[in-house]
């Protein structure tokens, strides 16, 4: 499908895309690691938010800064920066999430050689009045710091426009996910992954139009037959292993929904388009499904998972965790027992920058799927 080509291309090589976009438009490219980076403000400042995904290469340079018990996202991303592959970045945003990213921010600021650096020290809890006031205050401060850093003024109109743009983008990503949930044969999971990944990289105006075109094209598409495959749900943090999707299909399963920070957590929830836009951006963070490094309530993550699994009519859940990711690892026993109680089978896959050897992985997936 023609409408997918650019997404595939960008997802395959986001660096080349960002470099040429910068060359053509002269706009600053601003890196980040996290779905809590206030991209609306970056766009309103005339810059392009760029999600950093780690590396698939061997890690050597980062070993001088981070112990082997740091996750592959932290080590791999630092590796890319130290290898000079992220030279096109004008700055990096570090929203505060976990202990590793917190320290990576320091190491990055002191070693990565990227000119601008913003720490967005978000609250750890999202469910009290003072935390929500602070959250809005932090985003407001980030807006001022970004103005200073980039030497621009972020006007109210630009911000309102950026909010509307992101609602368009997130709305369309959600529509794509819903279409696929209804009919998983409509678009390959690997392609959908490429669409989400590119959405975190591309010029957002261009992206919004292309997403709409893709939705339209898919409405006219006849889905391929996947009736024999078991519906699966993916839960965890970052997924930078798109080959997992084809492996799953070969093992007899098909993913129909996820709770990933490179998935639904990136686009779920729209921003109110009335009232103060900064407060509205903050509100979305407080309401949307939380990263396990944030506290929305003692049971919100389990409740959300069960609800999303039921809505997706998935038969089983695969937890996809980065090794050494503490917040996810702490929630796992609780989430697993929530699923057990709900009668939903689950399995856990722990990955680093490389997936486990294919044969071994295939056997595990096949075994899991065959028992559903």
């Amino acid at each position, binding site marked *: 499908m023609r409408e997918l080509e650019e997404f595939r291309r960008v997802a395959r090589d986001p660096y080349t895309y960002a470099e040429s976009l910068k060359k053509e438009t002269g706009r600053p490219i601003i890196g980040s690691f996290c779905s809590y980076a206030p991209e609306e403000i970056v766009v309103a400042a005339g810059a392009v938010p760029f999600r950093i995904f780690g590396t698939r290469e061997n890690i050597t340079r980062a070993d001088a800064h981070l112990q082997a018990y740091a996750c592959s996202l932290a080590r791999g991303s630092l590796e890319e920066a130290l290898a000079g592959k992220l030279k096109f970045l004008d700055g990096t945003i570090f929203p*505060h999430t976990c202990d590793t990213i917190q*320290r990576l921010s320091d*190491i990055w600021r*002191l070693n990565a050689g990227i000119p601008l650096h913003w720490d967005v*020290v978000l609250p750890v*809890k999202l469910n009290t009045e003072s*935390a929500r006031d602070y959250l809005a205050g932090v985003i407001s401060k980030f807006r001022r710091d970004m103005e200073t850093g980039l030497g621009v003024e972020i006007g109210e109109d630009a911000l309102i426009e950026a909010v509307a743009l992101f609602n368009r983008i997130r709305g369309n990503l959600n529509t794509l996910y819903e279409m696929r949930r209804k009919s998983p044969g409509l678009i390959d999971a690997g392609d959908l992954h490429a669409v989400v990944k590119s959405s975190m990289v591309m010029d957002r105006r261009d992206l919004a139009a292309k997403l709409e075109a893709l939705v339209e094209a898919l409405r006219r598409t006849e889905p391929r037959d996947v009736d024999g495959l078991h519906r699966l749900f993916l839960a965890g943090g970052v997924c930078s292993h798109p080959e997992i999707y084809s492996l799953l299909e070969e093992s007899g399963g098909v993913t129909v929904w996820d709770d990933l920070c490179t998935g639904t957590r990136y686009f779920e929830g729209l921003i109110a388009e009335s009232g103060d836009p900064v407060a509205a951006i903050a509100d979305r963070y407080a309401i949307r499904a939380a990263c396990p490094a944030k506290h929305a309530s003692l049971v919100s993550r389990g409740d959300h998972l069960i609800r999303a699994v039921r809505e997706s009519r998935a038969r089983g859940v695969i937890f996809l965790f980065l090794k050494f990711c503490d917040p996810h690892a*702490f929630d796992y*026993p609780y989430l697993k027992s929530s699923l057990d109680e709900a009668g939903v089978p689950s399995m856990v896959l722990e990955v680093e920058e490389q997936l486990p050897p294919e044969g071994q992985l295939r056997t595990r997936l096949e075994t899991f799927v065959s028992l559903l």
Partner: protein
Amino acid sequence: MTAVNTITPSAADERKIQSVKRMKEIMTAYYIDAKTAAENNKKVAWITSGGPVEPLIAMDVIPVYPENHGAMIGAAKMGIDLCERSEQMGYARDLCSYARADIACATVDGGPIGGLPRPDFLVCCNNICGTVLKWYEVQARYFNVPLFIFDTPFIHTEFSIEAQKYVRRQFEEFFVFLEEQCGRRFDGDRFEETARLSYEALHLWQDILDTTTKRPSPMTAFDAFTHLALIVTLRGTRTAVDYYTQLREEMLGRVARGVAMVPREEHRLLWDNLPIWYRMRWLSETFASHNASLVADTYTSAWSGMGDHFDDKDLVGALASSYANIYINISIDRMFESLKKKIQKYEIDGLVMHSNRSCKPYSFGQYDLQRRVMDELGVPALVIEADMVDERAFSEAQVDTRIEAFVETLRQKRVS
């Protein structure tokens, strides 16, 4: 001469810190109190080691510290069993061993004191890590009790106005939370009295740590690790103030008499990160055998550093500042400044860093700090890979070899 030796205390006896006995009595009484709280109609709150405990004490709530308990489990060498048990419960081996041991211990009432008393509520302050949030969420679900989260935004380059206001506001919310839990009005006067006692203990603790600026050092970091128990569990009480007054007297006396904890103190070292609880004795003897004295550390001084923010006119503001600015809640460039001051103040010859698999916020950044300490201050620095409670992450032979090579470097540097 033999006859004289039989009637005067031997050098080894003289080196023993007499106050240890008193500390053990206090800690025993404290745990008996905590474990019999329910019978005495007292509430028990579990709280993180860097959490604002003063409001609890002011409301007669007994604070219990799972981290202190974790240290006890480690020192009793009961870590592996409990960690493995938590792994059977589904917790990854890469998680903090305090958390793993505590989570497992709660289900079996194991460990050296048969488990901690059941909490009525939990107080979690994330100034030490994000791990405590997840750990306390687990325990709040397990015990089905309320959790108060005291959020202290991390200080990378600044303690922003927004963050200051936020931390302050949470004290007010904490007071209200305690009123709800205890069913009575918050006692502001007792709170102020408690806060003053807390600062008094913190300042005494600093004085005690400062006695090691003298040569030879009257105590080492290993002693500080032991005597820290009260500043963690009983700050805010008269007991802690009295105890540290006694300990300070003892240390000053040792300084006056020239009593060295490490005989033939040659190399003065600075320890970074938590202790390796299950190898305290071995490490202490190994360093001593090389005439190396660990005269200071970044861990026990994390508490005394809180004392710097004292403001008698604004105790809530002072505590907000103290709790938010602790050593592990600041960026590595700020940590470097703090290391630099310590290296000068205690006349440090070498830095020993425990790269602690259990403590990512303390350990990540150590490699950068190590390089800066060596390059900018010309002080040799060693990194030891281990874990504070989980012995499976410790290789005695490897650590032994590295310490030996490190001391050799120090010796050569001294000669040249």
